[in-house]
């Protein structure tokens, strides 16, 4: 199963194992591929579309987070087209809800912010939607601010796949899709939430935070999720 194979990523010859994804191999070899919905230890959602790469001979871009490597594969992780499309995706995300770093608990520790800087998003060419969603502060330890949410569903996957509580899920569809707890009940009233906080650690932005944090104070680390999931042999 775990046979060795050779492939090329960005003109580098690389040896990998057959069950690895392009993203895993690239990261092992310190080749950066931007991701947002990906989180080690969780299943691949393939929804942010930032990790798409070019593979020679394949007419479409492939999501590197779910596509397994194969012998002789020739991958390009960055191209002018990919860079511009990734910037457009980030711009659209920034326009979708209220990502105002100056007032965000996660500023300085936010994956969206980091990506915008890395990919050179200097302007947002689309009108800001400025929705005004109610903040759910009903939980005794955590707070959910949908205005900062990017719908990556990392919280839902951490909750369902690692904790097994299935408190978080997506409601609605299209631009109206929305993260909810239980059946769209207040988080504090949730009968399924174990208050484990994995969702908060998994969140890439300031949508989920610990109570009592002020601007820039919300630091998080989700590295334990992958260890937990390998221990439980789930998610893979």
């Amino acid at each position: 199963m775990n046979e060795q194979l050779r492939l090329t990523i960005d003109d580098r010859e690389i040896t990998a194992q057959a069950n690895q994804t392009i993203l895993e191999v690239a990261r092992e070899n310190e080749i950066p591929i931007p991701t947002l919905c990906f989180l080690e230890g969780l299943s691949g959602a393939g929804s942010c579309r930032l990790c798409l790469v070019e593979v020679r001979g394949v007419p479409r871009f492939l999501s590197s987070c779910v596509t397994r490597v194969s012998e002789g594969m020739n991958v390009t992780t960055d191209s002018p087209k990919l860079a511009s499309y990734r910037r457009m995706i980030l711009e659209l995300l920034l326009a979708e809800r209220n990502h105002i770093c100056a007032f965000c608990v996660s500023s300085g520790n936010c994956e969206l912010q980091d990506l915008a800087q890395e990919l050179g998003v200097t302007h947002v060419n689309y009108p800001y939607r400025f929705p005004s969603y109610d903040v759910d502060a009903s939980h005794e330890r955590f707070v959910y601010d949908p205005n900062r949410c990017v719908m990556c569903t990392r919280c839902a996957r951490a909750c369902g796949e690692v904790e097994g509580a299935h408190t978080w899920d997506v409601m609605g569809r299209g631009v109206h899709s929305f993260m909810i707890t239980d059946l769209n009940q207040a988080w504090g009233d949730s009968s399924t939430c174990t208050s484990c906080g994995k969702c908060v650690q998994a969140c890439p932005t300031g949508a989920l935070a610990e109570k009592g944090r002020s601007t820039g104070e919300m630091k998080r680390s989700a590295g334990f999720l992958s260890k937990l999931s390998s221990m439980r042999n789930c998610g893979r």
Partner: protein
Amino acid sequence: MKIRDFDALNDIRETGLNKLLRGGPRIGVGMGTCGIGNGAQDVYEAIKTAMDTKGVEARIVPVGCFGYCAAEPLVNVYIPGGPLVILAHVIPDDAPYIVEEIVAGRIPVRKALCRIDAWDHLTGHVTYGHGFQEIPHWDEIPFFRGQKKIVLRNCGLINPEDIEEYIAVGGYFALCNAFQKPSRDEVIDEVQKSKLRGRGGAGYPAGMKWALLQKAVADRKYIICNADEGDPGAYMNRNEIESDPHMLLEGMLIGAYATGAAEGIVYLRAEYPLAVERLEKAAAAAREAGLLGSDILGTPFAFDFRLVEGAGAFVCGEETAMIASLEGRAGRPRPRPPFPAESGLWGKPTNINNVETWCNIPVIIACGGSSFAEIGTSNSTGTKVFSLVGKIKNTGLVEMPLGSALKDIVYGIGEGSPTGKRIKAVQTGGPSGGCIPAMHFDTPVDYESLGTLGAIMGSGGMVVMDEDNCMVDVARYFLEFTHSESCGKCVPCRMGLDESVRLLEKICNGDAEASDVEKLEELMPMIRSMSLCGLGQTAPNPVVTTLRYFRDEYEEHIRTRRCRAGVCEKLYMSPCENSCPLNMRIPAYLQLLKEDRIEEAAEIVWLDNPLPASTGRICQHPCENRCRRADEDAPVNMREVHRYIADSAFAGDLIVRVRERLLENKIPPTGRRAAVVGSGPAGLTAAFYLTMLGHDVTVFEEREEAGGMLRYALPEYRLPKRILNEEIGVLEHIGVRFMYRQSLGAGLALDSLTGEYDAVFLATGTWNETQGGITGENAPDVWHAIAFLEQVARSHRPVIGGNVVVIGGGNAAIDSARTAMRVGAKVTVAYRRERSDMPAITEEIEAAEMEGAEFVFLASPQRVVINEKGRVTGIELRRTRLGDFDASGRRTPVSTAEFFTLPCDAVIMAVGEKPDPDPLRQAGIHVRDNQTAAVHPNTGETNLRGVYAGGDLVSGASNVSSAMATGKAAAHAIDRSLTGKDNMDLVLKTFSFRNIVPAEPEGGDRNVSPVLGVGERRDSFDEVVLGFDAETALQESRRCLRCDVKEQCADREGALKEPVS
């Protein structure tokens, strides 16, 4: 009773054939959802009642739909021995007649559409009988001609709820056949040989998918039928299941047998209750017959079947979303890999095919894969069912061999537009497809060709669009659809479509700028390449194709804030105003006339159209083609009303006050000078507006008087020159100067004009005749239409006599014919196409006919017959027949071997006019291949700065209002360039009047102008159409429905009041 073997199946076949063919007359009522919606249930009951009353021993059964939606309800009648006859447009009141005829052993011919002598069910063959030759055979009807019914093989012919009838026509024999093959591989081989491609839209080879599933190793495998048909305008899968559910079951049984799947699931949308019901019934019957379950047909093969009703999310048509939905989760796609063939439903290997793909399988097994592959093209084999809907005469389900040309479907099967409007595009493949413009209608319909055009085959929806469809609005509509159906999982689709919809809404509302189209063009490829599933990846297609083929419409929406189709509400006043090339504010002058404010009515008429009396007589009135009153009874006769207003101005001293009003509204002198070369309608219009805009205008005219074609080509009986003189008088009054006998190139040099004037507008028209290219064309008695008309206009003397043949079908031909008759000739008009294809104004053709002109159609000139004295004695014509459809949807005349000669003394060639390119070329102006001047499409400016051109010189021979519109547009552009301001709105002024829509249509029937008696017209150039009197004009104005009033509120008492603006 379980069917255990082949013999048992054969016995049932006999029982079924008895039902179909033996045991007395049989009536089948087309009762698909479509038929029932058209009243088939009532027809069924009525026929039943009529039979009961008469005590008739005939059988009546529900059948599916035969596909011809436009002719529903359809009923088929079979009297043993005779053919099966399909009756169309049957209503319950027809029931007694139908039953009486059948009792008498006759076919109810009054309702008959077509007959079927024998039918190849492809898995079986049925001979009905012969006779009733007076009823056309089914494939002689335009709608069916060229169709090949494979998937629809049984639809509308058998009772879908009777398994015995399905078996009678060869059903389930293909399954037997599959069982009898030495191995399962050979079943898959046949499918691979057939080269059948997925009919859901993407076109992946079905045999390859089957082979993948067969190879997959698992304890359980699934096959799924995708019947989640959700494209707007597509309903073939619904009909296939409703009309012939067993063919789907049989196809899936064969698939399951070949691939080793133990369970089949049909994911069918819940919005198709009849399909659900019939498929459930079919499955129950099959189960009872031992065709589902275990030990099928006495073999160890077992197969379970399950129907799952989809809740209607469009995205569930995507295979991974469908699997999620089947597993009880929300219908959202997941990234692939893994592909369903390795890990699908419940993590097991799964194969998903569309309804139509499954339905093809029994035929492939019965007839062999290679014979199936002979149908269609080499890469796209077989047939495809299309739902032909929209602006098309014959709507319905059409099954065509792949590779058929789009034009044969649209113009042949569909017979073109039901209203005679120009068909603009076909949208194939629904919201994931693209708009194919009419110029590409000769494209063969196969997977690759459609893809090249930016469209897709999709599930087979074909929506025909005409000039009343705004292509920007079409793109907006489809994008709104995919936007609201997007699951929201991935960002490109969720937010990309949201942003795109907003941009398109901006364009449709007239709020957009050119950069918004650029943004749209940036977003589309991103959404296409970055989206997670097929929904997002194909959603840009409608936008991309409309941008590619109809970019001018986007630009119009943005630059001129106009929607030429009259769909985007904020971008036009009313359909009439919008279709008028001059954008005359028609509802305004009609309303002002109604309010007894004729002076203002005349003012607005003049401001919008400086030649209202001339155009009131000769305009081709596109306004009437769009008038919504036509849906009620007949269009408002708007042209005659503005003629009345203009004529009344000239009749009294009203014109004095109109002239004063015009002068009051003139912009103060700008000190800029403009020269107009040519005084035809385009030149006069440009001169009028440039003067109104404050510029000093001089018109240079080659001839001795102004008016161009209006004076020298338009016959006096259509446009009295007295009227034209009065109109030119108004122009002179407001300050236009005229210089006569000034000919460009000869004496008048363009560079001296550009030196002396700030801007020059060239409108020298099309005075050169197109040559017919036939021998004898230069004989002395062969006239070219314009030269002939000019000669008569100048002299009013007969220059022609005896028998005259006019060649052509345009207005110049008809004018020549009527003029020749007035100078004493006997006239025959010869035209190479059909009467309905003639470009001349219909009223004019009718008038010519009344005045005694003869018409010969489908004849093209070959040579002029000349005697030894050099005089014309006749013209030899070649009979044409109608061939393929051309880009305009008309059939191209094709020469035949038949020749004939019309004896005559003179010939008038009216085959077209073109400009004289030499003076333009000498002046350094770019001339296009067709000899017309090349100008910037937005401004009318030529390659020389400050030199503009318009009218026929640019468009080629056109019509008066279009020519005037170019003059108006050029004046606007010249003024903007000279002043840097936009003063046109000031000149056009705003008028206020009552904005109340009558509760009921008022004004009664359409009024037409009285005309001079035919007897009085001969030998006389007196005007034929006499015009309205005051009362009739008022009456006609009342008929306006006031489409310009877009909102109206009612006060507390319910009375309508004007909206507060």
